[in-house]
């Protein structure tokens, strides 16, 4: 960008109400009314921020960023577990597209069992649609078992399966009994259920809890045992977090579900604390683990160095052991200088710049802190498939209306386990901690952390994204692969916050350093200054060469 343009950009002034009006201007009235409720100007007034409409249907014909239930279930939650065979029951496409495209890293470990580089499908044909696909499914499960002898096979239903009425649960149950040494179960995660990926997360949570969690009672070694929920090891985030845990002496029993194994899920009930990263995708399992086994959960965030330190301290405080508290402080002290040096290095080039982010159900929130460490302000943000509690905080939960689409997603009834329920903290202990300001089961959502006059937009679509960029001229825009290149055509760098482009890890201490460098690279790249050729910048032939 030439210096003239840079100066111009700094002077960009916008009025949020005007931006909102312009976003809505072109819509047919019905669409405009609906979208108006999903675009909120943040008043930054405690408890008085207006309500935002979220987790509602996408309007047909409006180019959405959202995906489907199957993507949330198979792609997000179950995809990163290496030793389960994920068999997709349906026509070929759904399986093909979810094949290795999410950048979940995995360490195949000493046993080497890793099916993640494989795609398994029943490749339904028209005869299966007409006569039913149960036989083919049964045969496919048998073939997978005979070939690989895995410890577990998970079956995922795609759109047509529900419609033709294949009873996948009966088939998997039968096969499980037949094999004896292989846990087989199914997910009714047809793409049309719910309104977004979110329904798929819920379905995955339910089935993992129902069929896997609690299968292995063996007590693992470790003094401070936790689970990390809602961390998917994209670009190695989970590896970095595990590195830090290890250094602190914290044992991670199970990650849901980055770099995970079947056995991690099966043993999750033996941990003493659940720490929740992505609230949206995994809070159901956290709740169920508490009800059934008595393990409390806390919200954590390992995106940004400060947030990482805070989360580690919060874990240490939970266990209340001086040894751990000291260890955590020592680790923070040891890790921070490198982070601070990297931050100071980029700061002069990033400070004062602005960002927008529209992803998922947690990252549009988590990454704001990382940007703020670089002196960058988030001027607009929103989720792709979150619910109101992810925006406004969990206190809105009792007032959430359950519409037809959410009602279709099963809520499983969980009770305290007759033998294994073991409250990790007594009610008195919990109360005392809460009285001292410790927060369990708590998430305040994204809105309180955003500045006054910023725009919070749910389920942003392509048209609005382009308009927002045009009107508010951020220095960087973050979303997913589908949005990447239309934004960059406008001359604004775009960072993928689902798959991280080709980067990562961005979590933890090392991740923060990587992210500072990456954003510095993006917002200061020279490429954006090459968009116009010399003859386009100065079209007039004002001077001539003297060719005498």
């Amino acid at each position: 960008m030439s210096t003239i343009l840079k100066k111009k950009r700094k002077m960009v002034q916008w009025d949020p109400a005007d931006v909102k009006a312009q976003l809505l201007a072109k819509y047919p009235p019905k669409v405009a009314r609906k979208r108006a409720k999903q675009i909120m100007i943040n008043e930054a007034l405690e408890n008085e921020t207006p309500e935002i409409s979220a987790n509602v249907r996408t309007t047909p014909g409006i180019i959405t960023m959202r995906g489907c239930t199957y993507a949330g279930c198979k792609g997000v939650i179950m995809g990163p577990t290496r030793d389960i065979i994920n068999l997709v029951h349906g026509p070929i496409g759904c399986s093909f597209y979810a094949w290795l495209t999410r950048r979940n890293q995995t360490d195949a470990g000493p046993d080497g069992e890793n099916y993640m580089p494989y795609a398994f499908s029943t490749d339904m044909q028209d005869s299966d649609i007409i006569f039913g696909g149960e036989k083919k499914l049964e045969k496919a499960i048998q073939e997978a078992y005979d070939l690989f002898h895995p410890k577990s096979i998970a079956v995922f239903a795609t759109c047509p399966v529900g419609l033709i009425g294949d009873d996948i649960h009966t088939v998997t149950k039968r096969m499980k009994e037949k094999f004896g040494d292989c846990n087989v179960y199914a997910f009714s995660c047809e793409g049309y259920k719910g309104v977004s990926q979110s329904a798929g997360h819920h379905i995955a949570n339910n089935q993992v809890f129902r069929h896997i969690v609690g299968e292995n009672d063996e007590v693992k070694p470790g003094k401070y045992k936790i689970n990390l929920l809602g961390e998917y090891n994209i670009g190695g985030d989970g590896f970095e977090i595990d590195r830090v845990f290890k250094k602190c002496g914290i044992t991670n029993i199970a990650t849901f579900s980055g770099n995970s194994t079947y056995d991690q899920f099966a043993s999750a009930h033996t941990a003493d604390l659940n720490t929740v990263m992505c609230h949206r995708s995994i809070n159901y399992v956290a709740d169920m683990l508490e009800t059934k086994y008595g393990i409390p959960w806390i919200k954590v965030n390992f995106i940004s160095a400060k947030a990482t330190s805070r989360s580690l301290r919060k874990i240490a405080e939970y266990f209340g052991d001086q040894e751990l508290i000291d260890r955590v402080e020592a680790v923070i002290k040891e890790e921070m200088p490198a982070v601070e040096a990297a931050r100071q290095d980029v700061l002069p080039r990033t400070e004062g710049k602005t960002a927008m982010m529209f992803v998922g159900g947690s990252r549009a929130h988590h990454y704001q802190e990382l940007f703020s460490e670089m002196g960058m302000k988030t001027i607009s943000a929103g989720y792709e498939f979150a619910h109101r509690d992810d925006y406004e905080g969990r206190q809105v939960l009792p007032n959430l209306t359950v519409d037809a689409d959410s009602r279709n997603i099963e809520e499983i009834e969980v009770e305290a386990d007759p033998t294994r329920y073991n409250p990790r903290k007594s009610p008195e202990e919990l109360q005392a901690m809460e009285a001292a300001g410790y927060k369990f089961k708590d998430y305040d959502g994204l809105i309180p952390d955003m500045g006054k006059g910023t725009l919070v937009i749910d389920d942003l679509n392509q048209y609005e994204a382009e308009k927002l960029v045009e009107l508010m001229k951020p220095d960087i825009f973050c979303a997913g692969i589908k949005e990447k290149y239309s934004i960059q055509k406008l001359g604004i760098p775009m960072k993928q916050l689902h798959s991280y482009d080709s980067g990562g890890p961005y979590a933890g201490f090392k991740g923060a350093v990587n992210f500072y460098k990456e954003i510095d690279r993006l917002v200061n790249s020279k490429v954006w200054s090459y968009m116009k050729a010399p003859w386009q910048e100065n079209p007039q032939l004002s001077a001539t060469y003297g060719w005498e």
Partner: protein
Amino acid sequence: MLLRHTPKEISERSALMINPAKTCQPIGAMYAALGIHGCLPHSHGSQGCCAYHRSTLTRHYKEPISAATSSFTEGASVFGGQANMLQAIENIFSVYEPDIIAVHTTCLSETIGDDLKQIRKKALTEGKIPKGKYMISASTPSYVGSHVTGFSTMVKSMAGLAESTGKKNGKVNIIPGWVEPCDMEEIKRITKMLGVSTILFPDTSGVLNGPLSGEYKMFPDGGTTIEELKATGDAIGTLALGEWCSAVAARELDTQNKVPCKVLDMPFGLKATDRFIDALRIVGGVTVADELSMERGQLVDMISDMHQYLYHKKVALVGDPDQVISMTEFLVTLDMWPTHIVTGTPGKAFEKRIREITEDLPYEVNVKAAGDMFLLHQWIKNDPVDLIIGNTYCKYIARDEDIPFVRWGFPILDRQGHQYFPTVAYKGALRLLEKILGVLLDRRDRDDSEQQFELVM
């Protein structure tokens, strides 16, 4: 080892597909529709399919892919998607203002039984499709055929826009099939060089290989215009490149508009290009420009120069039928030995064609239609090869088995150039050859002992 669970011994599978060599119809329909100027593809089904197709095309082309969806929820799945589609049509024309929408179905809407033709009629009577705007549709259930079938079906729907005025316009229709934008550009360059006036459809050049200029055009400058599509009905003839991708549309123009057609192989490699140029020269009534004969000569020259590195080298090849057929022929032309050949797209005709092309080889090739990459890998384990040609997913096999690998086909997710440097025709064959030689010679440089290591190759 990334694919460490793949056993060498091959067992019969009748229900389980592992590591597919195909994907579903709608993505092909979407790609084809992007080759119409001012067109917004629309996926009639739940939004996940559309998200997946857009993501995959975006990763391959590194370009924005716009497409809308009917966003079915459970209700639409039970009661039919007509209401969603009608609402979508209205929203699309008011918000995005395309000239045309090209709608394809998905597994879901097909299983429900939605009838797009009837929905279109209703939209027309209700005035939801503005004057001068168009909607075409294609039925693309993914439990039939593959992404190739979806492409071909949408191209056929494009041909449905043809109008016959009774007066021939002297043009030749060329249906290029599912090739890269730069391949389409290359075909246009050649027809121009020959002086044959043509209509190429679909044409994604200038759509999926656009510039970075600070401006985002949802509908870029490229693409076959609706006027051109209408004019295909008055053409003197159609050359369809690829039986799987292009023949259906060409035959449609033949029966509907009396435009005679000739179905050729896709012009990859020497001989298929020869046949294409020869056919073009004859239908166009022109003599072949010297420059083009020159390009051909250069290709032959490079083959002769480098023959020693190619001779009897064994190749595993996987991809889409039309591409793989021409590539197999090219490999035979080069005196290489295509050994294991797989396409995911069903069709026994494919296997027959491959056997014909390879019948003079001193061994019997392994060939399978409706096959998968798991089988290909097992074949390679049993009978190792010197080279693998296929899409990006082959890199897992190539790494595990330590075999040189040329990326060619769809999708290519990890390398650049396929959008910009054609592999069709003579220049394209030169590039293919360059790539093949590149990996083979790199391998020699890696493996040669210090004594044998060569400066000049």
